[in-house]
């Protein structure tokens, strides 16, 4: 139905050509590819168990045996960073699904039913938007008690608003279209109209929007982890690892900096790829 849902062959070719022409987008794609591969093959890539303590090799600098050095328990930091990629991807996936679903439901209902429903839902959305989301996520994470699942829930609770706005806009647009009008005049139920006609139109736009925001999700998660409101030790979550190694900065620089570089590279990958996707999809921005 939508252009994106059934792309024609030359569309794909055009996209591919654009992708080839933009070195930054390629770098992004490669970074994400590496991230996915590392997460998938973590047990193969990681030289040792990320939880295994060995006090005889505490606080070792990076070496051939320990690429990223070791921490205060003698754990291999490289293995921990490798396993951390799984956690990062897990966070992205779950947060995207939850906030995408919540945002879509809110936006669709607001747009489709209009009137008072719209007013109330949009004011709630405004309320969430009118507030620094990290601070709000901190509040939820602290209230739920710091842990990985609670952090995921907290981030989801503050990131659904842009999707709600987007879904509402798309719904309003779809509502005016002929085939929706036609379906309604033929007596189709609300659920049927939404499910069969409106939802498919909004989903593709939402998915693009979700991919664009994946970098932000990692950053928020890492921020919460860094503040101690996210995953708890000994979980090898990147932000928590930076926080854990922070007091060692002066003498064991590798402890906070190397896990931090994993965050930076992953986010960079998502952002470069996101930029590329935006350029490909939105010819207006292409210059």
């Amino acid at each position, binding site marked *: 139905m939508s252009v994106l849902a059934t792309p024609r062959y030359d569309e794909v070719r055009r996209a591919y050509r654009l992708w080839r022409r933009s070195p930054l987008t390629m770098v992004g794609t490669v970074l994400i590819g590496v991230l996915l591969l590392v997460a998938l093959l973590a047990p193969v890539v990681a030289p040792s168990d990320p939880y295994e303590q060995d006090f005889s090799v505490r606080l070792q600098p990076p070496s051939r045996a320990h690429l990223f050095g070791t921490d205060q328990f003698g754990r291999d930091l490289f293995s921990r960073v490798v396993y951390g990629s799984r956690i990062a991807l897990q966070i992205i996936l779950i947060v995207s699904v939850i906030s995408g679903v919540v945002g879509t439901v809110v936006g669709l209902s607001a747009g489709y039913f209009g009137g008072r429903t719209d007013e109330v839902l949009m004011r709630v959305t405004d309320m969430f938007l009118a507030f620094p*989301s990290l601070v709000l996520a901190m*509040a939820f994470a602290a*209230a739920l008690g710091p842990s990985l699942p609670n952090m995921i829930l907290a981030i989801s609770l503050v990131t659904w608003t842009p999707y709600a706005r987007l879904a509402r806009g798309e719904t309003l647009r779809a509502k005016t279209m002929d085939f929706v009008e036609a379906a309604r005049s033929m007596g189709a139920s609300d659920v049927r109209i939404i499910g069969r006609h409106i939802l498919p139109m909004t989903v593709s736009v939402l998915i693009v929007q979700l991919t664009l925001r994946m970098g932000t999700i990692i950053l928020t998660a*890492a*921020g919460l982890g860094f503040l101690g409101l996210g995953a708890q030790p000994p979980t090898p979550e990147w932000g928590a690892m930076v926080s854990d190694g922070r007091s060692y900065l002066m003498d064991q620089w590798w402890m906070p*900096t190397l896990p*931090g*570089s994993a965050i930076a590279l992953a986010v960079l990958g998502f952002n470069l790829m996101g930029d590329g996707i935006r350029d490909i999809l939105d010819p207006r921005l292409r*210059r």
Partner: protein
Amino acid sequence: MNLATYVARRLTLMVLVVFGVLVITFIVSHVVPADPVTAILGGNAPQEKVDALRRELGFDKPLHLQFVAYIWGAVRGDLGRSLRTGRPVWDDIQQYFPATVELTFSAITLAILLGVPMGVISAVRRNEPADHGARVFSIVGVSMPVFWTGLILMLFLYHRLGWLPGPGRIDFAVLPPPSRTGLLLLDSLIARNWDALGSAVAHLIMPAFVLGYVATATIARTTRSSMLDVLGQDYIRTARAKGLRERLVIVRHALRNALIPTVTVIGLVFGGLLEGSVLTETIFAWPGLGRYITTGYLTLDYPAVMGGTLYIAVVFSVVNLIVDLTYAVLDPRIRL
């Protein structure tokens, strides 16, 4: 809609937002299974003392009564007493907020000073090395976690090279000037304490840069794309055709119009700055409101958390309002 109606509407929304924030923080603070009295008294206190203090502070009352009491207090400017510092939260905020103001304003100043020229140069020299450089700088800027940038800079510029001072607002060897405004730069100027001023400025550079990096990137990007838009307009071509010098065309004609979206973006990034300040203040041991709130969350000092969050909500809303009004004044054509 005229300006007055618009402002009235926005103020109503603001009150709603603030009330919503109050409700959320209150619920959030009170579902936490943390006993504020225990937080005050510590682990050693005998049970009788705990019970007595709980009654004294009204924590034994039903939740809705506590909420009403809190709202009533907040309206009168009484935000309760911090469990950790034992002082009125309002006093704490007054003490911590100026440090955050100083930091965020330095950051935004730095971001504007770096971002606008960068965006302009990028646009004018499109697809040349300067443009690519600026774009890489931008994309890296929005990708790096604030706390990580902070740690890396601290590691090199402070620990290794010693070029810039480390955490805190002022050197420990320098006695701070008497506090009049709470803004260290201003206080040093008033006291004509040049040592303190120099030390305070030096201490500001790194955190302001770290905090302002994302904002710089965003501002540069926006300026670039709106500059490109404007440079393609007819009147610029006309100006050029008239034989005006290129520099004049860009500064007089193009930049003026291109800056309108930039102003909006500056308003938008301000929210990001408040967020970033939470992390930056933690890294640089900056005694600001962000750190106050973070410590509040970690110790579950909820009067502090509620008061601090409420304050940020109000500041954030007011800033957004000012930005929107500025935008309206700058460009009367926009629909209010």
